[in-house]
């Protein structure tokens, strides 16, 4: 067998776009998996708790794999990348850092299942499109990883799509809550779609397809779903209301999340845990 491709020297010109893309992929999955882990024990029923925590675990695993690619490129150790970077250094979409709902994960949590369903469904669909494109990435280790991750995404997507359609079709309070959640998710969904200031370089180097192509693909795939449940959604609804995470703009929700998820790590970052 040949040496792993990621050990090969990478053209210095490609590096900024490549690392930028990897930070987005890793940080998106990491923070959403964290939000998922806060739901543990609080999902609508026990079966869902088992399924949701399995998905969050997969997503955290994907984050770990993306951080590993960054470590291989000399960006630092995976645990330091995941735990020690400040909010301004994070490149995740703002939508994914938003709290699950009022309250704290240990007391008085009043988490919003409608928001969980809409956020996860829309995100996973966009992640699926992104990873399908990455299967042809010019950066071989990323292309290989995309192939592996993709298999799990099929089930994640099926899971959230089932919830989304069922709750949308239930009418009454569920419909009202779901529509409100969709509005909230779309208001920051442009922040998920965007690949940031280096998007053009990423496409030019063949790392991933152009942002606009991926966006249109998402709209195209979602269209029949929205139509089937009589929901009017247009391209103009996609916005970046709470900031562009791809350039390090974030909300207080992320600061609080980082403080929690790195609480033990920060006792002694050099120690072995």
């Amino acid at each position, binding site marked *: 067998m040949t040496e792993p491709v990621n050990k090969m020297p990478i053209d210095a010109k490609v590096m900024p776009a490549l690392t930028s893309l990897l930070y987005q992929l890793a940080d998106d999955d990491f923070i959403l998996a964290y939000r998922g882990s806060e739901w543990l*024990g609080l999902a609508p029923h*026990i079966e869902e708790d088992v399924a949701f925590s399995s998905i969050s675990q997969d997503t955290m695993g994907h984050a770990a794999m993306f951080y590993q690619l960054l470590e291989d490129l000399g960006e630092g150790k995976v645990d330091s990348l995941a735990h020690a970077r400040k909010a301004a250094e994070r490149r995740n979409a703002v939508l994914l850092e938003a709290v699950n709902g009022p309250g704290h*994960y240990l007391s008085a949590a*009043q988490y919003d299942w409608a928001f969980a369903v809409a956020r996860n469904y829309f995100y996973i669909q966009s992640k699926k499109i992104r990873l399908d494109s990455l299967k042809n990435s010019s950066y071989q280790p990323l292309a290989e990883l995309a192939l592996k991750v993709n298999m799990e995404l099929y089930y994640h997507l099926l899971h959230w799509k089932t919830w989304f359609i069922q709750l949308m079709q*239930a009418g*009454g309070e569920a419909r009202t809550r779901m529509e409100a959640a969709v509005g909230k998710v779309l208001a920051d969904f442009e922040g998920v779609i965007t690949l940031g200031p280096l998007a053009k370089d990423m496409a030019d180097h063949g790392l991933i397809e152009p942002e606009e192509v991926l966006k249109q693909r998402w709209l195209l795939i979602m269209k029949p779903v929205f139509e089937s449940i009589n929901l009017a959604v247009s391209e103009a609804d996609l916005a970046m209301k709470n900031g562009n995470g791809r350039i390090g703009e974030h909300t207080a929700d992320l600061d609080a999340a980082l403080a929690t998820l790195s*609480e033990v*790590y920060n006792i002694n970052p050099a120690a072995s*845990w």
Partner: protein
Amino acid sequence: MSEALFFQEMTEEQKYEQFMKRINAGEKIEADDWMPEDYRMTLIKLISMHGISEIMGALPEKEWVPKAPSLKRKLGIMAKVQDEMGHGQLLLRVAEDLMKPLGKTREDIMQDLFSGKLKFHNVFHMEAPTWGDAGLIGWLVDGAAIITQTNMLNASYGPYARALKRICAEEVFHAQHGEAIIMALAEGTEEQKVMVQEAVNRWWEALLMFFGPGDASTTGTSKQDTTIKYRIRTKTNEDLRQDFFTKYIPRVLSLGLKLPDETMHFDQDQELWVYRQPDWNKFKDIIKNNGPKSQERLGLRRKAYETNKWVHEALNTAN
């Protein structure tokens, strides 16, 4: 056909005799088989308590899932707590089948939990204030659970015995996951060593209580005689506690940890561990939902139940 008719013509007493003969011969009882009311009620109580304890048991660990100190530990504890929820689900399905003839469902189990009628295990009422506690729960609480559950692997009730086989296999991984966390701490910095010793001190009494009182004289009631008679379990609470000591005391000591009971020793003549009894009045109080974290954790579950009510209603409409 004739055999079925014959069975219907039997008196309750004859049915009971035949039932006892079956279980004493090592046969398994299945969900649809005839069983004495006492047996059914004992199983419902035991299995629904076991199931709901798995679910409530996710809550003290839940605290540490988002906080786990590395990606590897985050993935490990996520998988571990997911397994516990899975065990809860599996066991509640077994309990639900037993409750069906009584016209009861999972909804009743949840309501009984909220009202305090259905108890959950004493250990899950306790505080878990540090990462050391997260490790200790995996190592010693799951270790204790393996010992009590292994004792029921040959339970006369088939569905429970089969569920336990799967659960025990997974619990072994949990105990290894916990042990790995504890070993890293015990071999780590001074601060980490203190963390793990404090966790041992904090959990010691709860671990002794885990196996239940030695006999009914301690707390007024004990189901162990009934469960032994019906071949659901074989060993007594005290036997299990002694097994736990034999397995874990040497391991605790080998990590350089101190036992929080200076009277503890192995008596060669009696071949028994001699130890200081926990406060059994405190035990009774804890399982009545008066433990340090009982109300907070029940409150968290209750709140989630209320907050998600619209989801249940929507699903009922759809079905």
